[in-house]
């Protein structure tokens, strides 16, 4: 009982932390001490000090302000993108499994085509075709991530499709819509939510990876990966320009991973 309470307590703390991150990123955007895009070459490469706690970059922009401003870009892009792939992937998987037959075969063949390439390589290729920009990098990663949800939701639906309670629902007169929304989705959504919570962090990392390769948001967008990409050329001269956005990325990824783990623990505990 005590263990169950502790697991729930951990989940609540992490949910509050994640909500705080998302809300804080939005609120802080309008109350920054320094303008994140204003350049001042005379202040370039300032080491961390009282005025610029994380120092300044090659154009004299406040690194701390750019991290805080970029938090909203990175976090919201990742959360919204994961939400979109969650919905699209789940819809594809549920449709394939519930309809079965030729619909299932066609949809699963499409996912197999996408799975034939390593995830990040495919995202790089799609981003390369679409061009740089936040929207395009989200689309490129979305093209890769939906497969996880399609595969997972399909297998979950297949495991419950012929269960007695679905048969009972059919004999009770429930149509396909009622069966999917009332009987199937509520009983399969938990593992998908855990995957989504874990995917937020890997989405942030992948987006940072794309930005680092120059395929993410174009300059001067204050996205974490893009900020690190810009800073890599002067890593020896001003390491704080890359270390602090990296730390922000690390902390956020860890928090979302812990949230995913906590969600899984709560679900496992039943």
């Amino acid at each position, binding site marked *: 009982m005590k263990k169950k309470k502790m697991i729930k307590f951990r989940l609540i703390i992490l949910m509050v932390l994640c909500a705080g991150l998302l809300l804080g990123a939005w609120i802080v955007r309008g109350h920054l001490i320094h303008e994140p895009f204003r350049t001042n070459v005379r202040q370039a490469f300032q080491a961390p000090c009282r005025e610029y706690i994380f120092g300044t970059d090659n154009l004299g922009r406040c690194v701390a302000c750019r991290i805080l401003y970029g938090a909203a870009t990175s976090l919201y892009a990742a959360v919204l993108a994961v939400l979109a792939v969650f919905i699209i992937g789940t819809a594809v998987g549920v449709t394939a499994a519930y309809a079965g037959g030729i619909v299932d075969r066609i949809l699963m063949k499409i996912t197999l085509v996408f799975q034939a390439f390593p995830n990040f390589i495919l995202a790089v290729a799609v981003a390369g075709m679409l061009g740089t920009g936040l929207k395009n990098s989200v689309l490129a990663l979305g093209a890769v991530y939906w497969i996880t949800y399609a595969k997972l939701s399909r297998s979950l639906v297949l495991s419950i499709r012929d269960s*007695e*309670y679905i*048969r*009972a629902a059919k004999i009770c*007169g*429930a*149509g396909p819509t009622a069966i999917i929304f009332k*009987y199937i989705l509520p*009983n399969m959504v938990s593992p998908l939510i855990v995957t989504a919570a874990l995917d937020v962090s890997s989405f942030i990392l992948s987006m940072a990876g794309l930005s680092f390769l120059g395929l993410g948001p174009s300059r001067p967008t204050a996205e974490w990966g893009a900020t690190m990409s810009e800073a890599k050329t002067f890593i020896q001269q001003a390491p704080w320009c890359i270390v602090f956005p990296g730390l922000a990325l690390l902390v956020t990824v860890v928090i979302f991973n812990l949230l995913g783990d906590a969600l899984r623990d709560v679900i496992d505990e039943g």
Partner: protein
Amino acid sequence: MGIDGVKGIGDMKIAEIRNLSYSYRENCGQKKAVSNVSFDIDEGECLGLIGESGSGKSTIGSLIGNFLTGYEGSIHLMSNEKELADMSKKERHDLYRDIQVVFQNPWQSFPPNMCVGEGIAEGIRYYSRGLASDQKKLKEKVLETMHLVGLSASYYQKKCRELSGGECQRAAIGRAIIRSPRLLICDEVTSALDVSIQAQIMQLLFSLKKGMGMALLFISHDLALVGGICDRVCVLHDGQLVEELPGGREMYEKAEHPYTRLLMKSVLDII
């Protein structure tokens, strides 16, 4: 209905099964589960289907329950002229207003997070839109049904997974009878329950059958149980109907087929 409006055995055919055959698709071909089976179920009658595991009795239940399609032969339900497979979706939906199923595993016949009240209401929600939209009346109807199956109102909000096997099976029976079906298919309803609970559930089913005048298709491997309660018994072996017998003591006296005798002998040996 009978001449004077009273439901009774033999008034009309609830189900007419003719030359029914069904095969399951397997990796290397097909496996015949039911082969050329014919029988009728009369109104208010209790028909038992017995046989060992894999004899095809649950497959017949699933075919009548419309969970499986692609059979050979014919299934006519509720004296309908149209064969089940030829019916439109709407016709089939209307037809199944009068047919319900109670499954073997009571816990698995409800979604894990559904509460008892909601679960029982599902039995009528899709056939009585007026009642479904009036939450107060629906709750009254559910409580009335819960009382009928021996569940107190305190169970209304309980999750089905929190109930014991007997209680959960009572809830499943409640869901099945809430819309007063004319045919109730009981697919191994007592197999997952212990002996004392089995007796309670059987008693409940038969008091409901008497009170509501519904027909029962009782699928079981328990020969003694089926023989004791059914009006007629069909014995299945390897997907084929090998013998049709009257229920009660006559079943033991009139059995001729070697397989039926073997089944009976195995029961007597255990006793």
